[in-house]
């Protein structure tokens, strides 16, 4: 599926004294098989933007097209398209409600009108995909799991609906390092397994540098940068002006270079940095 956002505007509380221009002329496209990261300072409109992508918020101006069809139309076709765009909210564990993990993951597919067996199959597949064993946790109460596990169950709940575009709003927020790592590797796994488009909102530049195929940067409601991580993170000054920073590995290499070390600061991840240092200083 291909998503096109055209000249999107969104105003909260339009007409009231405290109206906020949350999105201004945002245009972008998302393609199958891409892993796109969306970054931006707090309040820059990231959440607002992604809620437009599956029709939860309606644009005040502009359009969201999925395979060329406006998803905000009233037609059954647009409705079917909206269902293909799965959105995992920030802190999705707060949406769990069923008695068992298994039933909760089945909620989405059941709403799509699938049969019991189909639901069960989708639930099992999705739980496995997020690294949970359906036989082990399936009959547990979702409220008895750890924070990171709850979050993976919630993501499985969306995956069970077979989305062609998966959007995750800060999926690693508030987790410990191990939980973060588990979520990230689970996202990579989803991408490899299903080859769908994944849009990820994140505040962690290290993670972004590591997994993104493409990076989008929002600032005060506008989409200001859009390109491969190398290109986007090379715009150090522009990022700093927006209250963002380059990945720590890049900043470290920049400091080494500034101190006279003969290294190139043109790296993004820890692995790159290590390789560059070894290249310059050689193996002992």
């Amino acid at each position: 599926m291909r998503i096109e956002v055209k000249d999107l505007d969104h105003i909260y509380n339009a007409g009231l004294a405290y109206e906020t221009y949350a999105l201004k002329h945002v245009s972008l496209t998302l393609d199958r098989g891409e892993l796109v990261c969306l970054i931006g300072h707090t309040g820059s409109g990231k959440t607002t933007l992604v809620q437009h992508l599956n029709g939860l918020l309606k644009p005040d101006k502009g359009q969201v097209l999925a395979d060329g069809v406006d998803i905000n139309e009233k037609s059954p076709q647009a409705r079917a398209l909206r269902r293909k765009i799965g959105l995992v909210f920030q802190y999705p564990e707060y949406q769990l409600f069923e008695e068992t993990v298994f039933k909760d993951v089945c909620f989405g597919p059941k709403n799509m009108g699938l049969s019991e067996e189909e639901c069960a199959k989708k639930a099992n597949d999705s739980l496995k995909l997020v690294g949970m064993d359906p036989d082990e946790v399936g009959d547990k109460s979702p409220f008895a799991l750890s924070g990171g596990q709850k979050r993976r169950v919630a993501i499985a709940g969306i995956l069970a609906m077979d989305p062609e575009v998966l959007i995750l709003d800060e999926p690693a927020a508030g987790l410990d390092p191990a939980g973060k790592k588990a979520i990230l590797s689970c996202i990579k796994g989803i991408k490899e397994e299903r080859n769908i488009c994944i849009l990820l909102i994140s505040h962690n530049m290290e993670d972004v540098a590591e997994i993104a195929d493409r990076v989008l940067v929002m600032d005060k409601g506008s989409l200001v940068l859009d390109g491969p991580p190398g290109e986007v993170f090379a715009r150090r000054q522009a990022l700093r002006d927006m209250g963002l920073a380059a990945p720590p590995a890049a900043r470290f290499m920049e400091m080494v270079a500034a101190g006279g070390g003969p290294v190139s600061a043109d790296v993004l991840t820890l692995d790159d940095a290590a390789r560059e240092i070894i290249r310059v200083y050689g193996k002992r």
Partner: protein
Amino acid sequence: MAIKDITLGQYYPSESVIHRLDPRTKIIGTLVFMVSIFLVKSFTGFAVSAALLAAVIILSKIPFGYIARGLKPVIFIIIITMTMNLLMTPGEPIASFWIITITREGLERSLLLAIRLVLLIFSSSILTLATKPMSLTDGLDSLLSPLRKIGFPAHEITMMMTIAIRFIPTLMDETDKIMKAQTARGADFETGSIMQRAKSMIPLLIPLFVSAFRIAADLAMAMEARCYRGGEGRTRMNPMRFSNLDTIAWIILALYLAAVIVMRRMGL
């Protein structure tokens, strides 16, 4: 989403004299005014009450439309009671057609009743429009505190009200978020039979209760960490003080009450 449109605690911000009055003055003033309305028995009396209320409305700088909005939910009741009184009161007939007879007493009674109800509603609307919910509960706390001597948990009750008011917007936000999250999972809150719709509330209500318990536990923990304990000997961050404004208000209120009683005695 519709949930955002519900305005709660209808406070209308402004810097007027009425807004600046001590909440205790406003609460007592409103109570006295309401009682006085039941003492008044004539149109002349109501003219005096209405004049006072009109003065307060003008001073408060609240647009009249906001105050009149309070009538909306009860307009039906007013019309029904007016019609009942109009048709059912025996006395000197002034008009009649078919089986309906309207008497002078009936007309008078129904008009007085309507005026009384409207004045009651307007006065209570002004109290809530011109007083922040939080100062309202502070005022109540202070007014009810003498009852603590007879074991009435005044502080605890007003504290509960304060917390409830404080967390209404938080829970609304939470509801909005959960509704969106479940909608993204294909939940449908708007269509279907009553039974279906009641059932579709489960995915909304359970997470909402879980959130409410979580918030309650966090708040309790935070209060305990700051050594909160109930009423006795507790001081305020913003102590309430009567000002000259309040003195003036009390004097006007006393004069008004005296006038009402005198008029009632003289049968006016």
